[in-house]
């Protein structure tokens, strides 16, 4: 039984997982997704039984996963988890159906109705693309004319997904959010992510700073419920500290865990390797 790690760009995280595996006497074969050719007419051969899928390109990873699962390979994360977590609208919907607290979110499907949706927030709201990472194109607007401009701009991007308007309240919170890393169904570490300078987004990719966050009972319980709701795997759950408790705004199915490893001192890579070995059996 073989384990492979499929990547398109080798980050700190992928290197650590490979190192942690070799320390445990487990060999993980790195495979560059960009070099793969998969034959859909004979779905019966792949060189690994378990794949840790880590492509930065979401769609590459998603469709690759679909094929591998078709070949009977066990992929972390699964196609269903990726599909759900790669889409903020579907994630919020699932969380809501599982009674997990989320920020107030409104969806519209046209420029004009998007403006009506924004009116519900008095034009002070966050407009998020339903796909994408690192806070890309997430827009905080504060007044009608800016809201109108941003909505107009989305239509100029010539991507129909940008015309699904996912609009969220700007949650009153400290200048940070909390990321919890889950492996399997178990929360293993957490970090605060502080936003940098006049940037309001907390993404580490935008200069955000990681600090240790204790896995309190409240955080652990919430993370377990979220992991259960989306189907488990290696996940990063992002939540905010509102006046009414924690609100979950995102679940990452391709979580970067350098910051949380360093801030918490927890060997996240090692825990992932143990999880992959269990799946192998």
């Amino acid at each position, binding site marked *: 039984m073989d384990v492979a790690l499929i990547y398109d760009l080798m980050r700190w995280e992928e290197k650590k997982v490979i190192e942690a595996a070799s320390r445990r006497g487990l060999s993980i074969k790195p495979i560059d997704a960009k070099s793969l050719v998969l034959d859909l007419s004979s779905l019966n051969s792949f060189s690994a039984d378990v794949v840790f899928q880590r492509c930065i390109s979401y769609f590459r990873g998603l469709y690759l996963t679909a094929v591998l699962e078709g070949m009977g390979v066990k992929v972390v994360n699964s196609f269903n988890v990726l599909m759900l977590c790669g889409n903020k609208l579907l994630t919020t919907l699932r969380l809501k159906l599982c009674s997990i607290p989320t920020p107030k979110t409104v969806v519209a499907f046209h420029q004009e109705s998007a403006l009506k949706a924004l009116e519900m927030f008095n034009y002070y709201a966050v*407009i998020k693309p339903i796909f994408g990472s690192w806070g*890309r*194109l*997430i*827009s*905080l*607007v*504060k*007044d*009608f*004319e*800016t809201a*109108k*401009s*941003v909505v*107009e*701009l*989305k239509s*100029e*991007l010539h991507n129909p997904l940008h015309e699904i308007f996912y609009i969220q309240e700007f949650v009153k919170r400290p200048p940070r959010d909390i990321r919890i890393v889950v492996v399997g169904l178990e929360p293993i570490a957490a970090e605060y992510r502080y936003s940098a300078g*006049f*940037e*309001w987004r907390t993404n580490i990719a935008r200069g955000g700073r990681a600090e240790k966050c204790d896995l309190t009972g409240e955080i652990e319980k919430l993370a377990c419920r979220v992991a259960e709701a989306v189907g488990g795997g290696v996940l990063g759950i992002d939540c905010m500290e509102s006046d009414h408790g924690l609100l979950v705004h995102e679940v990452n199915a391709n979580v970067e865990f350098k910051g949380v490893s360093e801030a918490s001192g927890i060997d996240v890579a090692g825990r992932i390797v143990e999880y992959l070995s269990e799946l192998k059996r």
Partner: protein
Amino acid sequence: MVSLGVIYDFIRPEEKMLINEARNQGVEVKLVDAKNIYFNISNSLKNLEDIYLQRCVSYFRSIHITYLLESFKCTVINSFNTALVCGNKLFTTISLLKNGVPVPKTAISFSKSSALKVLDEIGYPSILKPVIGSWGRLIAPLNDPESSLAILESREYLHPIYHLYYIQERVERPPRDIRSLVVDGQFICAIYRYQPPLDWRTNTARGGRAEPCPGVDELIDVSVRAAEAVNGEIVGVDCMEGRDGLVVHEVNNTVEFKNMVRVTGVNIPSAIISYLKRRVRK
């Protein structure tokens, strides 16, 4: 009898009015649909008209055809240079400045981060305008650092022409601007363009309301000088009533004038066609 080529890609009410007027004045009109023509430029061009009126809606189509016809010694109104300058807000502002025509305070930068630095310097609210484009399209308010960041970031996903950050002060003005028409250095008439209830842009394409505007000395002076600054023969000059007087923010080389005709009653097509006839004789 003069033969006038009218180059168009869409027939708007303006083109219809111009064609009718030309025929009334005994001018032979050759309609040239820019979408249907091609030029084999390795051969010399034949059957050219005495003079062309360039009315293409598409900016790029328009300047390329004008350039080509001018290269083959045709007279095109407006000229390539005028079209090039008027079609680009940065070039326009520079031409106006060099000729002493008052303009809003303007800055240009070439990256998101330098755009944010400019904003630190000139302050909020400001306005971000694409250097190319009409009808107020993609003109965006920069009201605070966070939403400005969102708007500047979105621009990075658009065509490189939108990575030029032309940033202008938000002029304190009444809820309107002024469009005046200048033909052959003469002020013809002007309208106020009131911004519609749910927009701050005054473009009539966005539902802005037109009303007649009296041709006072300051307006005539500024409009004529703006037209001169871009060597415009038939142009629409857009200006705002700032605290210290009029400031010109745009000069249109393919001016839409149906609302001007409607509210001022001035026979603009007649003024234009009469000028084109005079121009041929020059």
